């Protein structure tokens, strides 16, 4: 009888050690479940910026979505919104709407294209129509580099007239600053005597 009791106590003790050991080992174990891995949904980075024309008649808006810039113009009298251009975002370049983007008669607008090296300025027709040779926009850097290679554009500040953009520039080998007019229809770069601070 005593032997039976001793064997029973031994079995109970062994079982207790076994169960305790199993529980401790489970705590340290990594739980692997068969559930599907979480799906990472790409967050669409969508931003918009806008600027009213000085007379309040039109609003220019840039929408950045899915690596594309889309440019819209809204006619504020009837709320009619039209897409005038769509451009793929290239590398680190960024399109910005300057404060003075609209030409005084709302016929043109210009945008600043910020690049890692040199900023560019692009002129569009607000009708969405292309320029000559089917160009959707005019780049100011190109005629500037050709016509006045000894100057670097510092800023295009705004419009001096319905088709005259003011370009502030700096001489490459000195601190001399000078302003130019960029005449949109002819794409001419005209040196001025006045510096537009």
């Amino acid at each position: 009888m005593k032997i039976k009791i001793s064997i029973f106590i031994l079995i109970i003790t062994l079982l207790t050690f076994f169960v305790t050991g199993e529980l401790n080992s489970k705590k340290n174990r990594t739980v692997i479940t068969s559930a599907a891995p979480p799906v990472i949904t790409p967050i669409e980075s969508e931003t918009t910026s806008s600027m009213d024309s000085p007379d309040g008649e039109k609003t220019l808006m840039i929408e950045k979505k899915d690596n594309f810039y889309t440019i819209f113009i809204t006619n504020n009298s009837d709320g009619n919104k039209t897409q005038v251009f769509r451009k793929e975002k290239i590398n680190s370049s960024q399109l910005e709407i300057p404060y003075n983007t609209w030409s005084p008669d709302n016929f043109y607008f210009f945008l600043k294209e910020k690049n890692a090296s040199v900023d560019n300025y692009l002129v569009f027709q607000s009708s969405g129509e292309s320029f000559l040779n089917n160009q959707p926009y005019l780049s100011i850097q190109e005629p500037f580099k050709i016509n006045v290679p000894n100057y670097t554009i510092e800023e295009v500040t705004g419009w001096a007239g319905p088709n005259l953009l003011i370009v502030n520039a700096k001489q490459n080998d000195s601190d001399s600053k000078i302003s130019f007019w960029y005449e949109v229809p002819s794409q001419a770069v005209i040196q001025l005597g006045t510096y537009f601070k």
Partner: protein
Amino acid sequence: MIFLLLFIYKMILPKNIPCANSISCKKLPRFEVERNATGIFNNQPVPVPNIMLSKNEDTNPVLGLKTTSGEKHIYVNLETQTLSAYEGSSLFMQTPISSGLWGKTPKGDFTIWAKFRATRMSGGSGADYYDLPNVPYVMFFSNDEVPGSSGFSLHGTYWHNNFGHAMSHGCVNMKTTDAGKIYDWADAPSDGQPGTKITIYGDLPV
């Protein structure tokens, strides 16, 4: 009577104050609107927007919006090319402007002496000549040293869009929408009370 007023008007114009608007140096400014006109700025033709007067708009000098929250005061900072309008300590609006490039904008404390929904402005010479009908939302200002006849004013602008940079012959140019808001808010003199105060300060960056 008109000739007498004009004579006095011319006599009080000091010789050393340049005309920001040559028309106001010859005759009293007035409400003036033209249809389908063409203007000239920087010796270039400029299309002139027609002025569409709504039924509620008065063509004579008008009072501003009556409020009781404090004295109205407009500050023009020539260094930053910004205008800030306060009512008491509350900012009513802040916006980029264009001050004098071809003619200096006078500095000091002024008051608005007349408001016109639109008028004609002319001046400059040679390449800087300008003749602009339908200048919108004009608020002429003056003080003891700068008489009203010298033609300095705050006003809307349809011939350029280069705000934040000096671009005028001495006046303070604003976007037409901004000028409209200030025009409706600011006061012309009435009942012995002076018009809204304007303080112009700072220097254009060299």
